[in-house]
């Protein structure tokens, strides 16, 4: 029986859609299938950001606690989205908790593995960076809008 690699699944995710076969193979070498039941945490604030989660099914709430305000969800993401941008820059630490809102299936990329491959192959590193940059820019843009608090009352 032939064992199917993860290239097809990784390549089917929006993050790596259309990625070259050779690079896809390299990235998939760092990938594994993961599942989380509703309520389980994918990562916790302060832990090493040693994984990237490419969500395939389900929804994940990104949460943070603030003194006097309790815990707060500041973003939810669903299928074809990515959790984990902190793997790109030192000190590689999660800055929030990510909790499965319902049962979640995802591809986990070993961040240390992927960083190593990107360091050794700048062409791969550049292509991977180009895939992550739109997500980073979009998060920045959305965060800016949230900070503007556009629905807040103004007199």
């Amino acid at each position: 029986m032939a064992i199917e690699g993860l290239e097809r699944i990784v390549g089917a995710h929006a993050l790596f859609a259309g990625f070259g076969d050779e690079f896809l193979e390299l990235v998939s070498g760092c990938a594994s299938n993961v599942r989380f039941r509703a309520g389980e945490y994918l990562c916790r604030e302060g832990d090493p950001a040693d994984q990237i989660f490419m969500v395939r099914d389900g929804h994940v709430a990104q949460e943070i606690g603030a003194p006097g305000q309790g815990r707060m969800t500041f973003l939810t993401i669903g299928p074809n989205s990515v959790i984990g941008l902190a793997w790109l820059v030192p000190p590689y630490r999660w800055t929030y908790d990510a909790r499965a809102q319902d049962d979640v299936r995802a591809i986990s990329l070993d961040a240390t593995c992927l960083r190593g491959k990107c360091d050794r192959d700048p062409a791969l590193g550049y292509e991977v960076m180009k895939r992550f940059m739109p997500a980073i820019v979009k998060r920045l843009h959305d965060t800016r809008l949230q900070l503007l608090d556009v629905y807040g009352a103004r007199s």
Partner: protein
Amino acid sequence: MSTVLAPNPQADPMVPVLARITRRIEEVPDVVTFEMEAPDWNGFAPGQFNMLGVFGVGEIPISISGPASEPDRLVHTIRAVGPVSRALAGLAEGAALGLRGPFGNEWPVETARGRDVVVIAGGLGLAPVRPVLYHLLENRNDFNKVILLYGARRPEEMLFTGELSAWRARFDIEVAVTVDHAAIGWHGHVGVVTSLLRNVGFDPASTSAFVCGPEIMMRFAARALVDAGVAPGEIWMSMERNMHCAIGLCGHCQLGPVFICRDGPIFDWARLKPLMMQEEL
């Protein structure tokens, strides 16, 4: 001998009639909905507004938020945010207030017949588009897909939650809501309202969009719709400015070459974009 005639409200749009609040509904903190009766009220078109006034305090434009198909039922939703709106929102059932209107143009729902319709509302902006939603659902067979995307600051500040739940239960309208942030326990979407666009399917070449909310939200919603392939001339939004006379005389609501009260408040993005992108206009 000359005779001094009392102003005829029907003939003079600057003269208010005396309306009365028949029902007061607390929607969320600082937001109330009034059902009102007014003499000679003959109904309105979705998108139009009235000038509501508290005697001795002032007058402000408020969109009509009830169904246009029930001309006897006049509904306004008001957020207490400034001196006049606070005075209005503080009125009790049975209280009298001044009313002029209806003014302004309407959401072009007739041009959306046979097309997909995407309604994007943010915060209190759900109130001005609610008449459109009533119209779409009352004439459901006239339209293809109907999608409502609604964003609010927090779950506790979402308007018309009972109706949102009822609409979500229907099979002929897709409803997605999001909040900017939420306490733990909220199982819905968190993120900006434009992020909901990625999760819904519509044919951009045959889509009309009706957008209402804070101006910056509408700007980014329009851009997201254009990025999705919707024609700028098919993206309609309701503008808000400092309207006083409501009939295009005083110029307070002038935005470049247009008066929001007289030429709007509904404009398409193709016309609005150059005006909205100009600072201090």
